[in-house]
């Protein structure tokens, strides 16, 4: 009886740990989000005109003031992505604020969001694009195999 109890407790503990791990997968997924303030013309000829300037805030932190044609960037965690946009349509015009909440796809590491299209109410496929980084410099690295542990000369 006691051993059965123990087994049960262990199983529950393992299940709990696995649940935590799964939860971490959900909330901890990191994405890099790139914001483009660029005019976008879709295939069917719709044009989303870029405003003069958009300032992007993520977590109350400014990610930069994007002039027309600029790209900004933010690292985020989790799939729910919130940002606040301060849009200046024309030079010296009045700012308008707009809060946007997006669902980021789990499979994409880097995501490019075209802000004019997003603000213009375009569908997901139009304003969102996967960012595929250029492969890092192709130099082969030499890995040194160690027999024992070298003397720790360098500081940590």
């Amino acid at each position, binding site marked *: 009886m006691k051993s059965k109890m123990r087994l049960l407790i262990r199983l529950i503990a393992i299940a709990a*740990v696995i649940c*935590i*791990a799964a*939860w*971490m*997968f959900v*909330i*901890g*997924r*990191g*994405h890099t989000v790139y914001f483009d303030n660029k005019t976008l013309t879709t295939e069917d000829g719709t044009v989303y005109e870029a405003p003069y300037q958009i300032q992007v805030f993520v977590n109350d932190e400014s990610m930069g003031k994007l002039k027309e044609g600029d790209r900004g960037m933010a*690292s985020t*965690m989790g799939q729910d992505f919130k940002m606040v946009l301060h849009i200046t349509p024309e030079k010296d015009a009045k700012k308008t604020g707009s809060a946007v909440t997006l669902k980021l796809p789990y499979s994409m*590491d880097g995501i490019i969001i075209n802000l004019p299209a997003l603000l213009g109410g375009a569908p997901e496929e139009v304003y969102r694009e996967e960012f595929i*980084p250029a*492969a*890092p410099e*192709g*130099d*082969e*690295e030499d*890995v*040194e*195999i*160690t*027999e*024992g*542990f*070298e*003397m*720790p*000369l360098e*500081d*940590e």
Partner: protein
Amino acid sequence: MNKNTSANKSKGNLGSFLRRSSVPIMFIIICAFCIPLSGLSPSYLVNEIVTRMGRNAFLILSLLIPIMAGMGLNFGMTLGAMAGQIGLILASDWQIVGIPGMVLAAIISVPISILLGLFCGKILNMAKGREMITSYIMSFFINGVYQLVVLYLMGSVIPIAHSTIKLPRGYGIRNTVSLLAMRQHLDNLIPLTIKGVKIPVATFLVIALLCVFIIWFRRTKLGQDMRAVGQDMEVARDAGIKVERTRIIAIVISTILAGIGMIIYLQNMGNIATYSSHSQIGMFCIAALLVGGASVDKASIGNVFLGVILFHLMFIVAPRAGAAITGDSMIGEYFRVFVSYAVITIALIMYETNKRREKSRNSEQLQQAQQEEENR
């Protein structure tokens, strides 16, 4: 007779206190000598020490439990460090960032640590009386296995998606894996700066939690058993304690803690040196613990913190002080390495001589008792 031994004991206590504190005192002198020569500002030093305290304390604390179980300095803590690194490599390849990434890495590392700990514990049970050299060679052996896994199996058998982590040839992990997405996330979770000194509050809380765990653990049945095994294996066995099992558990716990400690260490550093991060850890931690006044058979939480302060203070100031004296910074670097090794050597020698002295004293007492018996 009874009175005599107790008087002896108190005298021995004073003597052993001095012996125990000789290493810390020596280090205080070295530091006092080197700090002015190094020309480093006190605020810089305090900042560094606080950072290193957060970085290293957890790892060093992982050494305490095997010492309690009489297994000496667990050079096999490197095994846990490797498990932690594997966890971090996988978590960063899956792009799980921040604290969740660390938690996930810890969860991955634990089963690996348990397996390695079980293996290590089993082997150490086969090599009783030579635990330290065996755990030392064990760390080299597992280092070979680790290199096999990380350099050849990752990317070919274990899927690795990102080319920033993988070697260009298609398998194997790069020399450095960036942990930018996790860097100091735990340290900065609760930001606090006092007079320009950045304090990693959350990290300290985790360390405090571990300290509480260790104190609590000492009082549990298992903890008591461990101490009994540490004092005398045969007596413990006669008292019905499963000696082998207890020793294995001690190593497993130590390995798991070392794995988690390594994750905390690396989140502070901000990148993994895939093939060398773990290799320095063993020596750094053991030397620091010994500098804090611990010995091979006795170590307390206080030793850990004193050790971090003194050892790392020496480590920071020695090269600059060496350069100031000789004009060559390499000498200072070699000097601190020499001192680290010398400290470990001296501690080991003191431990062995004490053990022998005690042994001969015990046999003398036994002889005396026998004689008394005969006289009666």
